[in-house]
């Protein structure tokens, strides 16, 4: 076992100030710059694109995203990467 274990919330803390990709429970996604978060993983994001498969994309200057429905957070993601893309590499 590695001694340098990285706790989940420490991973998020490392992402503060950088671009992230958030995938919600219902399949909706958000990309933007992470400004901060709390113990519930509520997130403050800047220059956000809300990616909705049904309604299309919406730009939002600065949001507080409720952590309740967050499924996954990908560091550095811009929402354009797909499983198929990664398989081709």
């Amino acid at each position, binding site marked *: 076992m590695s001694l340098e274990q990285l706790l989940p919330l420490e991973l998020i803390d490392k992402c*503060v100030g950088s671009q992230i990709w958030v995938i*919600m429970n*219902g399949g909706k996604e*958000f990309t933007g710059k992470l*400004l*901060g*978060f*709390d113990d519930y993983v*509520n*997130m*403050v994001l*800047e*220059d*956000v694109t809300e990616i909705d498969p049904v*309604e299309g994309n919406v730009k*939002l*200057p*600065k*949001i*507080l*995203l*409720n952590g*309740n*429905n967050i499924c996954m957070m990908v560091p550095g993601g811009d929402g354009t990467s797909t499983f198929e893309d990664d398989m081709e590499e």
Partner: protein
Amino acid sequence: MSGNVNGSGPVLADFNQAVRPTSDPSGFLSEILGAPVTVKLNSGIVFKGDLQSVDGYMNIALERCREVLNGKVIHNWGDAFIRGNNVSYVCADNAITGR
């Protein structure tokens, strides 16, 4: 922003502490109190209004609350309370980004 001519400063220092931009969720919320916001619910319903107050449950009180669908106002609710469990996000409409 040093409007203090006599140079006796502790009061101003406290004031600066209060307006210093904080970026964790509670700091963000206190920063945007009174400002126009967009609140989106998990169901997809969008409300716009002036953020009157928020609590730890993300319960929200909005003034001038309008319900918006496809960019059109479909209801003028006035003062409204939104229960926090329904909230997907709160967007500061006039936020200045890229600081």
